C-alpha cells in the first residue's frame, strides 16, 4: 500500500498514469453532464412553488458542494505536503486553489441570481450559508494572494499549506458563528433550501450533476498539476524525453 502511494507520488509515474486516465475521465464527465443537464432541464418536473426557476439548483448546489470539498482536499494535501514533503501533493494543493475559488464564485453568483425570484432579493445578509460562502471565497483569495506574494515557490507552498490548515480549522467556527447570530436573533428566516422532501425525479439529476462536477474538478486538477509538474521538473531527464518524443512526432 505504502509502496503504491510512493510510486504514484513520483512525478514521472503520475504523469504517465494521469495521461492514461484523462481521456476516460473526460468521456465520463461529458456523458454525465449531458445526462444530468437533460434530466435537470427537461425530465425533472417544475417546482410547484418556484416553477422553473428552481432549475438553477443543478448548477448552484453542486458548485457549492465542490467549493467546500476542494478546500478540504487542499487542507489534506497541504498536511501531506508538510509532513511527508511529497512534491506532488504540494502541486495538487496549489492547483486546487483557483479551481476552488471559481466554484465558490459560481455558487455565489448562481445563488444570488436564484435569490431574486425566490427570496425577492439578490443579496440577503441574514442568510448564514451565503455569508460563509462569501468568507470562503475570501479565504481562497487569501491563499492565492499569499502564494503569488512569496518569491521562493518552495517556501510559498509551505506557507500556503499552513494557511490552508488554519483555514480548515476556522471554517466550521466561521460558519457556526454566522448561524449563531441568525438563530439567536430572528429565528430561521429562509429555509427554502430545506424543502420537506425533494422529488426523486428532481434528486437524481442533481446527484448526477454532483458527480459530473466532481469529475470535472478531477480533470482540471490533473491537467493543471501536469502542467505545473512539467514546468517544475523542466530540467530533469524524463521531461526532456517527453519533449524529445513530442518533437519527433
Amino acid at each position, binding site marked *: 500500500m505504502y509502496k503504491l502511494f510512493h510510486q504514484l507520488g513520483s512525478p514521472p509515474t503520475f504523469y504517465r498514469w494521469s495521461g492514461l486516465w484523462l481521456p476516460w475521465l473526460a468521456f465520463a464527465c461529458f456523458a454525465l453532464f449531458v445526462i444530468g443537464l437533460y434530466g435537470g432541464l427537461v425530465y425533472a418536473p417544475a417546482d410547484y412553488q418556484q416553477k422553473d426557476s428552481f432549475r438553477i439548483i443543478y448548477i448552484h448546489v453542486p458548485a457549492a458542494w465542490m467549493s467546500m470539498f476542494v478546500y478540504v482536499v487542499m487542507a489534506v494535501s497541504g498536511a501531506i505536503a508538510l509532513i511527508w514533503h511529497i512534491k506532488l501533493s504540494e502541486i495538487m494543493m496549489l492547483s486546487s486553489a483557483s479551481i476552488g475559488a471559481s466554484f465558490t464564485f459560481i455558487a455565489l453568483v448562481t445563488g444570488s441570481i436564484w435569490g431574486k425570484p425566490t427570496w425577492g432579493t439578490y443579496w440577503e445578509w441574514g442568510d448564514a450559508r451565503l455569508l460563509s460562502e462569501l*468568507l470562503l471565497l475570501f479565504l481562497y483569495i487569501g491563499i492565492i*494572494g*499569499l502564494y503569488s506574494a512569496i518569491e521562493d515557490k518552495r517556501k510559498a507552498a509551505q*506557507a500556503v499549506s*499552513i494557511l490552508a490548515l488554519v483555514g480548515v480549522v476556522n471554517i466550521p*467556527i*466561521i460558519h457556526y458563528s454566522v448561524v*449563531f447570530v441568525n438563530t*439567536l436573533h430572528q429565528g430561521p428566516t429562509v429555509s427554502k433550501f430545506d424543502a420537506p422532501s425533494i422529488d426523486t425525479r428532481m434528486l437524481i439529476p442533481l446527484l448526477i450533476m454532483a458527480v459530473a462536477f466532481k469529475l470535472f474538478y478531477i480533470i482540471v486538477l490533473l491537467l493543471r498539476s501536469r502542467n505545473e509538474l512539467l514546468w517544475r521538473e523542466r530540467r530533469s531527464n524524463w521531461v526532456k524525453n517527453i519533449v524529445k518524443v513530442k518533437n519527433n512526432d
Partner: protein
Amino acid sequence: MNVFTTILKRDLLLAIRHRAELLNPMLFFVLVIVLFQLGMRAKPAVLVSLAPAIVWIAALLSALLSLDHMFRSDMEDGALEQMIISTQPTSLLVLAKILAHWIITGLPVALVAPILGLMLGLSFDATKILLLTLLIGTPILSAIGSIGVALTVGLRRGGVILSLLILPLYVPVLIFASQTVTTYMAGYPVMASLSLMMGMLVLSLSLAPWASSAALRMSVS
C-alpha cells in the same frame, strides 16, 4: 518557562523604550471611532445600536495595524533567527510574543474603550459588557494575527496581504463580541456567548502558537 518570561520581559521593555509606538494603536482606535461618528452624524438612538460594531471594527483595525511589529524588527536584526535555532521550543516563544503584543496594544485599547462606549451613548452596564468582550476578544486577535504575521514576515511589503489573510479569520470574534453587547442591550442573558468567546480564546491560544512557529521556521529558513 524561562524562555517565556525572558521574551515577555524583553518585549515589554522594548515597548516602554519606544513610547510612541505604545500609544499609536490606541490613538488610532480612538480616531477611527471619532471618524465613524463624524461621517455618519447618526441620531443617538441609531448610534447606540451601531456602537458595539463600531468599537469592535476599530479594535480589529488597530490590532491589524500593530501586528506587523510583532516579528518584523526581530527579523530585521536577526534576533528571530537566533531564537528559532536556540534549543527552546519556538511555540513558547510565540506565546510570549502574543502576550506581549496584547499587553502593548490590545489592553490599552480595551481600557480606553469604556470611555468611547459612553461617548457613543451606551449605558454604564452595557459598557461593562463591552469591556469584558474586549478583554476576552483582543488576545484572540493577537493570537490569530501572529499566524498571519509569521507567514508574511519574510515579505518586503506584507501589509496588504496580511489584512487579506487575517480579516476573514477575525469574523467569528467580531460577530460574537458585537452580538454579545447587542444581546445584552436587548435584555437577554449573555453568559452563553461570553463562554463561547472564552472557548475561542483558549482554542486560539493553544493552537495559534503551533501554526505560527511552523510558519516562522518557514519564513526564516
